[in-house]
């Protein structure tokens, strides 16, 4: 069968608009018609295809509409008379029960006479409705829908509160002993499972490959409703055995979905594991647990190993019993943990427990970002509606004669409002239908360009919920943009028959309304543009900020050495490798480290600074192990004190280097040089050693836009650490050659080992991907808002100018200066634009304070951005008003007077 065809399925869905009997008879035929016509259109290129879609959708909507409303009673007689719209109106208008269908029918008839107007309105609405639907789809999938597990609303993520961590943060990791304690006394939890993540090198078939593993406790797959696509999943009796279940993705990518992989033995880190099954593609592992992106799932082996209370790396999820509350769960976990870590138990790192709803933990801060995004697209939609309202107002004015005649022939005000609303409704629905197509495309693009780490992205689709949302938004939009112009037009139609006396006041009223529309859309555009301007400014600041080192030309090669290697072996390996890199052409200097900026810290330890502010308090501090040339290779500056001495480097002294963030936090006034930091918690006996600060370096950015953590640097030979990175400095031009050199050197040294080579700049780009993505997203909202507002101001001014042609003609004939005429016309639109800018800036200031607390570090008091945006929108608005005014000033007075007279 043919593969999924979104266009065809959309067409099929739209066919539901037709009456059932018609659909049953002709659906297959129409689908075939659609297929052939589209094939023909696509042979004429992209534009041909666009034209095809526009024609097809319009045709579908209009014909479906006619069928639903069209004169069924006439069908059996002879062809209806398609007279001019107005003639048969009054008789039908008086017929009781004509009602809404009649309104829609007349609306459709009159809209067909102005295709350009329809195209403009429908595409404006489609853009607004489409963007809104797309963002809603994402929000729905991420925030509103429950997690895809049975009874997921009762699932809670259970973790520890680690000393030094802010309460209310995310749950910290669990130890296996604590998990077993909790499982032995589950309290309100009916099921408890744990997961650990790790990595291993897969060898034996093809190139060695480093893969992610997840180790899980029994009952895990049952709890999350996972099913096998091949073989079986893990059973309780598998615990402790060397068996594994492959993830669906890994099974497909690495083995092409080959079923014969079942029963095969794979080698992970030198140990053999048997494949007993593969997961079905529907299973989406809980993203907050460590190792959720694993290629293979292994039993945790809790029943065979010793419970361990010193190593923390587990994520724990529990499902509450139906009658229990989240607070019951929280209280119980706290009680069980305090049995082991209570105040009477001596020194420890665990201060308490953190238990949160699993969905809340998964979605996290995304909820706020998405709400802001939804609000932004709603603003866009409102600007679009204001534009359309302006256009309808114009249209109502140009149709005054037609409406007046209808009114004179007996159509009441309600009838006229009804017909005009019918038009709006059709426009709204057509815009909504096209908007649904826009949303399909936008969601698709969104899923492709979003940087990793966005929760629940795989679940995002435009489904019936989103389409229901589209429908209600379209209807609401129709009412929003249609009602005021309709009422106005109908009222003035009623008046204008009785004479032209009130024309002057009506003109004033219309001008006021137009001014209000311009003001509203300017203010909204300013709000959106300020929001995106603040984000762009922040992004520029982040990109150009001094990172505290020279990032250009740095390349890192990371090793994960086999577990079989002893400490002396790997120390000599790094020593030799470092020496050999210095012989490579193009390398200026190189060093060993456990951490590169924009990456993760390998080592975080609890430390207690002495004779310091916060005396007697310990903190989790990242420790970076480095070789001698690390600082010079990175281009890091010394702020005070000295670099490591040879004795420090050999591990004979306790000298350490800290960064300025640490120094100024603990010794703000007296300086950190010569001060001591004790390893371990404050209440621990002095057996783990103390370190003396010999140097303070300038802060190095760890993550863009975030405060620099307090760091400790120690010589790498003083501490044992297996997995490190060799970083080398070269000229940016020779980077490629050096990368290749490093790779072949690594292959020579350890042939069976996968290595990761990255440049520091690519780490930076990765770290910036998310802020950049959000900035681009919101900047495009801002740009779109600006364009829409400019179009609206242009249209409104152009109409106002046209309706004053006679006045301008008279002025010019009387000898008025052309530039004065232009100035007068521009001022008319300029005043509401100016007020709109001021109101918009004020609202933006209020909202941005909200924004900065919500979203990614956005400074709300960024005066330059406000001034720039205000001026920019003012200029755009005045320019949009200038064009029609300038063309008005070229009016030939004689012609206009003759025409109007």
């Amino acid at each position, binding site marked *: 069968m043919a593969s999924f065809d979104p266009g065809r399925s959309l067409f099929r869905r739209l066919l539901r608009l037709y009456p059932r009997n018609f659909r049953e008879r002709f659906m297959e*035929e129409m689908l075939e018609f659609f297929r052939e016509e589209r094939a023909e259109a696509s042979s004429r290129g992209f534009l041909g295809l666009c034209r095809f879609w526009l024609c097809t959708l319009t*045709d579908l909507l209009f014909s479906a509409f006619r069928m639903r409303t069209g004169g069924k009673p006439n069908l059996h007689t002879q*062809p209806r008379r398609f007279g001019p719209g107005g003639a048969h109106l009054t008789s039908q208008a008086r017929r009781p029960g004509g009602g809404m269908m009649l309104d829609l029918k007349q609306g459709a008839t009159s809209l067909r006479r102005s295709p350009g107007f329809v195209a403009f309105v429908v595409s404006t609405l489609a853009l607004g409705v489409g963007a809104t639907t797309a963002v809603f789809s994402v929000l729905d999938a991420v925030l509103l829908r429950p997690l895809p597990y049975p009874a997921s609303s009762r699932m809670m993520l259970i973790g520890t509160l680690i000393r030094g961590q802010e309460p209310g943060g995310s749950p910290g990791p669990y130890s296996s002993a604590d998990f077993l304690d909790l499982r032995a006394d589950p309290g309100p939890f009916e099921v408890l499972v744990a997961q650990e993540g790790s990595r291993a090198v897969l060898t034996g078939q093809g190139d060695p490959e480093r893969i992610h593993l997840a180790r899980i406790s029994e009952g895990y797959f049952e709890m999350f409703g996972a099913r096998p696509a091949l073989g079986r999943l893990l059973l309780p009796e598998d615990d402790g055995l060397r068996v594994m279940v492959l993830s669906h993705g890994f099974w497909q990518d690495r083995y092409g979905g080959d079923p014969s992989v079942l029963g095969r033995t794979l080698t992970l880190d030198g140990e053999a594991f048997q494949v007993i099954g593969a997961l079905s593609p529907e299973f989406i592992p809980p993203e907050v647990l460590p190792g959720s992106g694993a290629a293979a799932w292994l039993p945790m082996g809790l029943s065979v190993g010793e419970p361990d209370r010193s190593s923390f790396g587990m994520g724990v999820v529990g499902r509450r019993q139906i009658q229990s509350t989240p607070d019951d769960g929280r209280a119980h976990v706290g009680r069980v943990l305090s049995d082991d870590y209570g105040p009477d138990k001596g020194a420890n790192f665990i201060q308490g427990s953190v238990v949160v709803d699993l969905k809340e933990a998964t979605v996290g801060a995304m909820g706020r970002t998405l709400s802001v995004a939804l609000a932004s697209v709603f603003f866009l939609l409102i600007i679009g509606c204001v534009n359309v309202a302006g256009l309808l107002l114009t249209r109502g004015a140009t149709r005054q004669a037609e409406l007046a005649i209808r009114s004179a022939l007996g159509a009441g005000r309600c009838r006229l409002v009804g017909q005009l609303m019918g038009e709006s409704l059709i426009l709204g629905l057509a815009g909504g239908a096209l908007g649904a197509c826009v949303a399909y495309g936008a969601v698709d693009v969104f899923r492709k360009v979003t940087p990793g780490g966005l929760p629940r992205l795989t679940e995002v689709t435009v489904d019936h919920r989103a389409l229901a949302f589209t429908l209600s938004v379209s209807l609401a939009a129709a009412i929003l943009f249609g009602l005021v112009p309709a009422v106005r037009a109908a009222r003035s139609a009623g008046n204008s028959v009785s004479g032209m006396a009130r024309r002057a006041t009506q003109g004033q009223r219309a001008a006021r309304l137009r001014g209000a529309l311009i003001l509203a859309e300017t203010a909204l555009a300013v709000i959106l543009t300020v929001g995106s301007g603040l984000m762009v400014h922040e992004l520029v600041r982040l990109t150009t900020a001094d990172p505290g080192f020279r990032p250009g030309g740095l390349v890192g090669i990371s090793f994960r050495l086999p577990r079989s290697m002893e400490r002396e072996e790997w120390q000599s390996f790094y020593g030799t490798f470092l020496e050999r890199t210095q012989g490579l052409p193009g390398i200026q200097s190189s060093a060993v480290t456990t951490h590169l900026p924009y990456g993760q810290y390998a080592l975080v330890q609890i430390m207690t600074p002495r004779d310091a502010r916060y005396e007697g308090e310990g903190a989790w501090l990242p420790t970076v192990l480095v070789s001698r040339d690390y600082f010079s290779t990175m281009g890091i500056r010394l702020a005070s004190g000295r670099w490591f001495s040879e004795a420090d480097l050999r591990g004979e002294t306790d000298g350490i280097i800290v960064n300025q963030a640490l120094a100024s936090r603990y010794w703000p006034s007296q300086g950190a040089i010569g001060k001591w930091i004790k390893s371990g918690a404050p209440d621990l006996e002095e057996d783990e050693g103390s370190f003396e600060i010999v140097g303070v370096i300038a802060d190095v950015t760890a993550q863009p836009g975030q405060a620099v953590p307090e760091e400790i640097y120690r010589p790498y030979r003083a501490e044992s650490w297996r997995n490190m990175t060799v970083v080398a400095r070269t000229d940016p031009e020779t980077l490629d050659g050096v990368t290749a050199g490093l790779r072949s050197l690594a292959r020579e040294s350890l042939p069976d080992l996968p290595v990761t080579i990255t440049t520091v700049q690519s780490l930076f780009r990765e770290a910036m991907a998310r802020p950049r993505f959000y900035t681009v997203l919101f900047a495009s909202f801002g740009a779109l808002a600006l364009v829409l507002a400019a179009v609206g101001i242009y249209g409104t001014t152009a109409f106002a100018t046209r309706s004053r042609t006679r006045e301008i003609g008279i002025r010019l004939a009387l000898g008025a200066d052309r530039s004065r005429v232009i100035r007068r016309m521009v001022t008319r639109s300029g005043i509401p634009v100016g007020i709109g800018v001021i109101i918009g800036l004020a609202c933006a200031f209020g909202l941005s304070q909200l924004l900065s607390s919500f979203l990614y570090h956005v400074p709300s008091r960024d005066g330059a951005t406000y001034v720039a945006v205000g001026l920019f929108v003012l200029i755009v608005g005045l320019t949009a008003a200038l064009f029609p005014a300038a063309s008005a000033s070229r009016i030939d007075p004689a012609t206009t007077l003759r025409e109007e007279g």
Partner: protein
Amino acid sequence: MDRMTKRTLQILLSLAEGPLHGYGIKQNIARRTGGAVNLGSGTLYEAIQRMEIWSWIEEVPPPDREPPSGGPPRRFFALTAAGQDALSEELQRMDEIVRYARGRDLLEA
């Protein structure tokens, strides 16, 4: 006498040449009018249903030269006697108008 819509007339004209399916009608009309009349699927089948109710056209079994499209079998439509009458009546009427116009030198011969 009610006037016939342009669309109806065009469809009748196409079917006068022989039975056609929906897309065939569209192509025939587009070719004959040089693309000036381009019917969408909705409008076309709407008109077909209406003309079936008036018994101007009827569904007929597909001819033997069914194209090898591989798609589902198509519905073919042909003119009924009433359809023929309606078409010739309309053409007659138009012809009268044209002759009148020529007689008054409104239209070049």
